[in-house]
């Protein structure tokens, strides 16, 4: 039995892109040569700006995106699922064990279904329960775990606020008794007072139900608070990965440093000393060769600038991985 629940090995995901029907087909590498291991029971954070490939990586791990090269392995108690060789019957089995919570609780719930039906749908589709009584039992059980009022199960989603809707989404994701959850920007659409409530709920459910999370977010302060280990993505690559305290107190890669310094401080006297990055994230169609960050790096080494350094994570202290180029230039 492995201590990891997910192993991602040299994973790349590319999309075909054609500007118009005459032009040549291009490949966009959204996710590039990713290696991560997610430990059982951990809260794994994935941060990065838009276009960094975090959602694509999350979806690839769930088998919702095609894997171009490399593989993803899900270690269940008694067997492993390799997503590159899995057949459709096994995929159905996998879907019961790995689930997704979406970003926008307004778009994720069908307005024409009652809350009970929304939460029960996965059970019916996956044929997990055999009778209506059993389904109702499971729905009520998970709804109360997600702190939903059982009287609300008969209502439609429009009657609920953003926070309550997100709790419905969480209940639906958890009803099939999964072990691994991908939470893709699951608190980004919520107000701060409600965001805190949902984060606390996710934490509590993790302990109660023995869950492992892949938590995707662009909000570094949220990630710092809830995650045990954090990977920072930039343009399809992981540039730094470390236990969360270590990463936030001792960032090594210049991109991580810039990201952290960009968070506006809540203290008005602490006026921002943001390391300003020049320009914007380059297009994934045409990523820089060598280190992908070199075009914006405030202190790139000579080798880095000339793209002589290949991307690749190096372990600088136990558990703290930094991209090779970032180690040199820092």
């Amino acid at each position: 039995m492995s201590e990891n629940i997910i192993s991602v090995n040299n994973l790349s995901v590319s999309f075909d892109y054609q500007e118009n029907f005459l032009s040549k087909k291009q490949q966009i590498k959204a996710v590039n040569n990713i290696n991560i291991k997610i430990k059982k029971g951990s809260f794994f954070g994935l941060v990065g700006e838009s276009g960094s490939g975090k959602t694509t990586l999350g979806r690839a791990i769930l088998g919702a995106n095609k894997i171009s090269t490399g593989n993803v392995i899900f270690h269940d108690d008694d067997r492993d699922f390799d997503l590159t060789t899995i057949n459709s019957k096994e995929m159905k089995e996998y879907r019961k064990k790995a689930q997704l919570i979406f970003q926008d609780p307004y778009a994720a719930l069908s307005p024409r279904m009652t809350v009970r039906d929304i939460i029960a749908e996965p059970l019916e589709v996956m044929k997990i329960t055999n009778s209506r009584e059993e389904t109702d039992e499971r729905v009520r059980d998970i709804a109360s775990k997600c702190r939903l009022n059982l009287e609300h199960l008969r209502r439609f989603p429009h009657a609920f606020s953003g926070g309550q809707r997100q709790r419905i989404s969480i209940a639906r994701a958890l009803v099939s008794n999964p072990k691994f959850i991908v939470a893709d920007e699951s608190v980004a659409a919520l107000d701060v007072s409600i965001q805190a409530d949902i984060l606390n709920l996710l934490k509590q459910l993790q302990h109660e139900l023995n869950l492992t999370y892949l938590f995707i977010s662009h909000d570094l302060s949220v990630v710092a608070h809830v995650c045990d280990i954090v990977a920072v993505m930039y343009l399809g690559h992981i540039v730094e990965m470390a236990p969360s305290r270590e990463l936030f107190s001792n960032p090594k890669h210049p991109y991580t440093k810039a990201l952290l310094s960009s968070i506006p401080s809540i203290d008005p006297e602490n006026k921002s000393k943001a390391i300003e990055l020049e320009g914007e994230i380059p297009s994934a169609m045409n990523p820089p060769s060598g280190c992908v960050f070199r075009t914006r790096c405030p202190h790139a080494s000579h080798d880095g600038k000339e793209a002589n350094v290949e991307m690749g994570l190096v372990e600088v202290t136990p558990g703290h991985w930094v991209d090779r180029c970032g180690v040199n230039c820092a």
Partner: protein
Amino acid sequence: MVSAMLQILTKQNIKTMSHLLEIKNLDVKFDTDEGRITAIDNVSLKLDQGKVLGIVGESGSGKSVTAKSIMQLNPGNTIYNDDAEIIIDNENVLKFTSKNDLKKIRGGKVSMIFQEPMASFAPAIKIGNQMIEQLLLHKDIDKNQAKQISVDMLNRVGIADAEKRFNQYAFELSGGMRQRAMIAMALSTMPKLLLADEPTTALDVTIQAQVINLMKDIIKEYNMGVIFITHDLGVIAQVADDVAVMYLGSVVEQGPVNEILKNPLHPYTKGLLNALPDINNLDAPLQPIPGSIPSPLDRPSGCVFRTRCPHASQDGKEANIEMGLVEVKPGHWVDRCGVDCRKV
């Protein structure tokens, strides 16, 4: 005796010094199929030239409606109260009805930057033409001059290749660039008052840092008054001089930004700060504010926050306290109920 005289003198000074913007007793209601909704309840705000007033609050707190009222951009079913005043340059803009008068404020004296720059540019018109169009509308200049001003402005906000961008469409620019173009367009008519409605919310943090720095420079350079609306207390801390905290259409606390964020008194302001994950203090637990914002259709009577207040006084709970700001320290105003319930 002398000090009393001085007090009178300074009071007179304050009276004669007119503010750039003064909102007095503003109520905004919307007539909907489900009934009359109170969006803003008795809001009064003041803003001087060269100052940034931050308005924070969660969704539904009435931040955007306040800003839109200043430009009279609220929809047709809006009802303002009769004694409300929004005074810009000694004129009550709420009394404006003719197109010419409205033109003076919309894009003239007042400009607005919206949250989603993609939605605020017309998709099928070149950015340059949109900039020229509004300049010709507000200034007595010809097309060439307008183009010159626009290109200069695009340069000023840090858009490389301004001439080329001038002839492009909004979809050809990246998110950060679009927001810069939006700022350039809003500033090109040299407004006295800038309304920025969540201008950095849709941007990534590194781009947000760029845009905030740019806005700070420009505010200083042009000495404008700015109303900066956001739900992000960190952004407020970095840009605002004063801050007003709104909840369900009412201002519950108001004052200098340093004072409000370091010494918050109203339970809602405190709740917001406690719910915020602080990267410098990872051990602090996240404390949500219990309950959720009530629907504006059944807005609580008395103190609007009483349904969620963690330590409401008996009077507060029973809605015996009328809303109203009280000055607890010079410049620091807190809603009456928020002052009382703390003592319990």
